[in-house]
């Protein structure tokens, strides 16, 4: 953050703050206090409380009863927990890489000599700010096996027409399709990244006789790795949270299973069911703890893995 560095004053040792520093510290903390208070009330405390609840049996009505690791033992033996974990990982591993590739492709195409780029920008971006629940309703209509547009197009070109929302092999694909409507937002982020690459790099590569593919591989891709990493991290976090589209596609989950063979039972969906449909708050807290740990571990793993391929440029840049 270069802007911060330039405006920063020489900082005195924290033990002998002058009157101005002390005054600034007071005012600074006062101004950020809403965030600080919110962080404690809506962040730290609920996380600690979740850990505590995960060790109890609790319906939300009577006081929690301490049961030790019983919830964790129950979880390991719960086939639906494994199903939900599998579904969520499957979805994330499918949606995130596809999302990165789609966004990158759109960004590269928009970065070429196309005058009407603002039109595409609007078309790609707009769906990403529309409510997911409404888009999910649209997909119920689009994917209807009887009179939906998608299967009509598939039949027209001689392809099989699957029962998207009725066949467990296809439900996840429907979910990934809905997620791709959000890719336009990332395409714009990537486009901003592409436009930040100095043109001299491409010019000197051309002088050296590099082709389009070579330029992409040796200039574009390395310089875009920080943005790609950012997309992967956010995508991972959102992928592990996927709920609304699965909830709508399965008709609200009030009808028992979450989609055929529970194929749309995502992790947050299962937390929701346990806590708010079955009243098992303690067990739902246990699942939340697992989600928290999985999120942190996966993000950590991605950052570690990224050290091998993210290019941060020279330190003095």
């Amino acid at each position, binding site marked *: 953050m270069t*802007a911060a560095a330039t405006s920063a004053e020489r900082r005195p040792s924290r033990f002998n703050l002058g009157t101005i520093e002390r005054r600034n510290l007071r005012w600074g903390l006062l101004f950020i206090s809403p965030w600080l208070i919110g962080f404690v009330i809506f962040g730290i405390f609920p996380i600690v409380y979740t850990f505590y609840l995960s060790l109890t049996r609790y319906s939300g009505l009577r006081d929690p009863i301490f049961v030790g690791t019983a919830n964790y033992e129950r979880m390991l033996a719960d086939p639906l927990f494994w199903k939900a974990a599998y579904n969520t990982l499957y979805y994330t591993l499918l949606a995130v890489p596809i999302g990165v590739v789609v966004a990158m492709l759109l960004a590269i195409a928009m970065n070429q000599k196309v005058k009407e780029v603002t039109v595409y920008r609007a078309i790609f971006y707009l769906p990403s700010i529309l409510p997911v629940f*409404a888009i999910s309703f649209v997909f119920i209509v689009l994917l209807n096996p009887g009179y939906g547009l998608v299967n009509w197009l598939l039949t027209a070109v001689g392809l099989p027409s699957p029962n998207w929302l009725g066949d467990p092999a296809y439900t996840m694909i429907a979910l990934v399709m809905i997620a791709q409507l959000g890719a336009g937002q990332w395409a714009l982020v990537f486009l901003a990244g592409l436009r930040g690459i100095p043109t001299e790099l491409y010019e000197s590569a051309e002088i050296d006789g590099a082709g389009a593919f070579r330029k992409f591989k040796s200039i574009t891709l390395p310089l875009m790795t920080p943005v790609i990493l950012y997309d992967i991290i956010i995508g991972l976090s959102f992928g592990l949270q996927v709920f609304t589209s699965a909830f709508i596609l399965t008709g609200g989950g009030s009808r028992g299973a979450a989609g055929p063979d529970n194929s749309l039972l995502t992790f947050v969906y299962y937390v929701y069911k346990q806590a708010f449909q079955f009243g098992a708050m303690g067990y739902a807290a246990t699942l939340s703890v697992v989600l928290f740990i999985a999120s942190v571990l996966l993000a950590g793993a991605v950052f570690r893995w990224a050290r091998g391929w993210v290019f941060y440029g020279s330190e003095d840049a």
Partner: protein
Amino acid sequence: MTTAEASRPAAAVTATPRRPRLRRTITGSILPRIVLILASLLFITPFYWMFITALKSTAESVTFPPTLIPQAWAWQNFIDAVNFIPFGLYALNSLTITVGATIGAILSNTLIAYGFSRIQWPGRNKLFYLCVATIFLPYPVVLVALFDIFSKLPSFGFQGGQSWVNTFLPLIVPAFFGNPFYIFLMRQFMMGIPRELSDAARVDGASELQTFWRVILPLTKPAVTVIAILAAVAAWNEFLLPLLYLQENEKYPLAVGLAFFTSEHDVAFNLLMAAATLIVLPVIVIFFLAQRFFIEGITVGGVKG
């Protein structure tokens, strides 16, 4: 707004072909256009389908093969959808929550960003990095605990609730405590305002609050607009939180109202799509009115510090 905008002029330089050859034109503008037009079709189709299904008669909406353009334009469907589903009530609830959450977002994030950018105090940057790091925390992790906490907070009869559950409070009040993404955005913007302005105000004897209110805040209008728009759209679109906290039909916003209504009643596809169109429409209108603010929000958010 700062970094992305500054880097744009460089892109204009790219478009100078030295030797115009056929192959260059194909890879240079025809191929990208084909990709872009095909992708545009894919992105538009769901919304086109939503809109024309909303205009089909009930019989026509369940024919195979489906008609690509309605045979008879049943505009009446929009009126029917509004009357069939308690649309006005849900819309009013959505609007109340959206306005409340937006006011909260504007107030809190400007104040917090001021403290993170216009005052120099020890530990500021460390706390700011902590704040930004929380962007990555998946909020469903605390759903269960937060619900339990809110179910124990007294609402003093607000909306007839005994606790915060089944009131709008859990959907509005947290907005008054800032959002790390908006704080980041606003801080980026405030960092770009020259230091001398604050110094001059201080020399004139203005307190920090006066400097914030009279000097800095008027200069941040574009960033405030970005945050207001993003926060309003997010509140309008939110599904999971109202689903958890609201338990009475009269309190549902559009998102939850529509979902429950369709799971309890048989709603024909054309009416469902008409309702969906009406829900999506305000967001589309806001987008076209304020496109530049959306794009700025996204590009600033994308350029990391």
